């Protein structure tokens, strides 16, 4: 076999594997979407792979009727959390990377531990504390919880980003008489848009997709986030697959849209964070 022919076979094999995996990753999305567009009478184990007869919006209408309050709850939880988290994170990242106070490494390491924490180890005191503060079962209680447990990851992303900003820039600003806050405001903030994008996307996705904290803290079905509502669509004895799938599609839309439209920034942040460890 000639060399170029062998190369062609090799390249084709690579593309074949890559496309096969792409199909595998898309398979559940396909099932979700086609089932969500079928009326209940057409949902059958035998025809689950077949395309719907037409675009029946009945399942979406029913699902939306049941989960729309929860969809808006999730918005009210997620958007403030993403913005507050990124503000806190940018300040912390700035301090950890440019104001190396004594023992800053130990403090930072103690922060990082939060990334690996099994949340079960804090759930009981969390409920007790939120109850004592009158925040248990409220959206602000959940927002506060997400913001606090977001401190480690947001500090890490911003610290990695600000580490790439030359110290000379900060030193020059100091010589020009800039203090702690004006360096943050006029030197760091204006150049940190990409890091903000990463953190906002990250927190938006994490908080929108959260199930455990929402289940625990918002035990009232009216206040529950969308993830809990979609799970509740399963009912206790009889699952209307088309409706639960439509609910799942609705729940997946915001994060998917954010990911597809800002995915490039997200990837960049992910990669930057990964390389720097």
């Amino acid at each position, binding site marked *: 076999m000639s060399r170029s022919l062998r190369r062609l076979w090799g390249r084709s094999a*690579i593309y074949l*594997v*890559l496309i096969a995996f*792409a199909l595998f*990753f898309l*398979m*559940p999305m396909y*099932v*979700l979407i086609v089932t969500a567009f079928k009326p209940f009478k057409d949902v059958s*184990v035998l025809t689950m*792979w077949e395309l719907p007869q037409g675009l029946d919006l009945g399942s979406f209408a029913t699902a939306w009727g049941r989960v729309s309050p929860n969809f808006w709850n999730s918005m009210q939880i997620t958007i403030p959390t993403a913005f507050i988290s990124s503000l806190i994170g940018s300040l*912390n990242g700035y*301090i*950890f990377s440019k*104001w190396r*106070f004594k023992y800053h*490494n130990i*403090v930072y*390491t103690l*922060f990082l531990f*939060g990334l*690996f*924490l*099994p949340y*079960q*180890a*804090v*759930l*009981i*005191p*969390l409920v007790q*504390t939120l109850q004592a503060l009158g925040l248990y079962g409220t959206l602000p209680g959940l927002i506060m919880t997400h913001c*606090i447990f977001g*401190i480690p990851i947001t*500090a890490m992303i911003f610290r990695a980003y600000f580490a790439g900003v030359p*110290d000379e820039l900060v030193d020059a600003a100091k010589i020009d008489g800039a*203090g702690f806050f004006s360096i943050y405001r006029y030197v760091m903030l204006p150049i940190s848009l990409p890091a903000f994008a990463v953190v906002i996307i990250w927190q938006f996705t994490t908080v*929108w*997709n*959260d*199930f*455990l904290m929402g289940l*625990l803290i918002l035990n009232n079905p009216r206040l529950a986030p969308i*993830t809990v509502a979609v*799970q509740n669509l399963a009912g206790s004895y009889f699952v209307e697959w088309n409706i*639960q*799938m439509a*609910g799942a*599609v609705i*729940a*997946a839309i915001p*994060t998917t849209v*954010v*990911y597809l439209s800002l995915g490039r920034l997200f*990837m960049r942040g*992910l*990669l930057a964070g*990964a*390389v720097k*460890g």
Partner: protein
Amino acid sequence: MAQSKALREGGGGAALAPAAPARRRLSLPRGDMLLALLALSPSIIAVAVFIYGFIIWTGYISVVNWNDALPTYVFVGLANFARLFETERFRIDLRNTAIFAALFITQCLAVGFGLALLLDQRIKGESILRTIYLLPFAVSSVVTGVAWRWLMTPSSGINRLFEYVGLDFLKSGWYTNPRIGIAAVTIVSAWQMSGYVMSLYLAGLRGIATEIREAAAIDGATGFTLYRHIIIPLLTPVTLSASIILGTYSLRLFDITAVMTSSGQGFSTDTPAFFMFQTTFQSNKFSQGSAIAVVMLLLALLLIIPNLIITARTEKNQ
């Protein structure tokens, strides 16, 4: 930048500097440094209370007898732990976690590394493929669980697909078969996380300078040898951090099984996280639940502490 850091650290190095007067060592942060610490302090307090304080409090609850709705704080030593380890369900959970972690981490590393390697061969449409591979990562575990619960229904889903293409022998009971149980869930989780691992490896590969590859090629390392002896060793840090992230995921496993199977038949898909949640918040056995949480925390520490030491050591060496 590295140079300036070396200069700065060299300048303050203990070997060169004259013995600092004791007064200086006691001095408190002033001016902007004080402002920096003040600005950080709300976060320090939040982390201290909500992470470390809460862990200590959970530890305390695990040694008292609060196993009813109303709190009671009578010290009972390790009785909750003793009872826990005598519980069949908990032993199954620990085994499930071990099986899950082993299979899940292997799948993610293999698929993630393989895809990154293939994507790094100047592929047309790389960004589309990358987007597709990472898409599951953007979708919640609840959505994932809903889709896969249907895909792994024995009378339908993947089994039906196998029938279409004549691979009937591959048909499986998936999570409904207690002998497979948690192993079926690893496929779902690997579906969710492989793309993320792929992107970590891809970043690692892109971070290996072309010069290194060229130098290796001049030394005769090409193809398999290049990967075996140069690329894979250079990617060890990525493998390590990916393993820790995936290990943490394994310990936290809750959402997907809660949606797909709950505990499964004979607890075949049960996890410590799910057991803890039910014990504590459905059965009101707070001390018993805390004991589960403490065991989970110890397992997490086993995973993290070596990593923190390695990170601290490399940072010091740099």
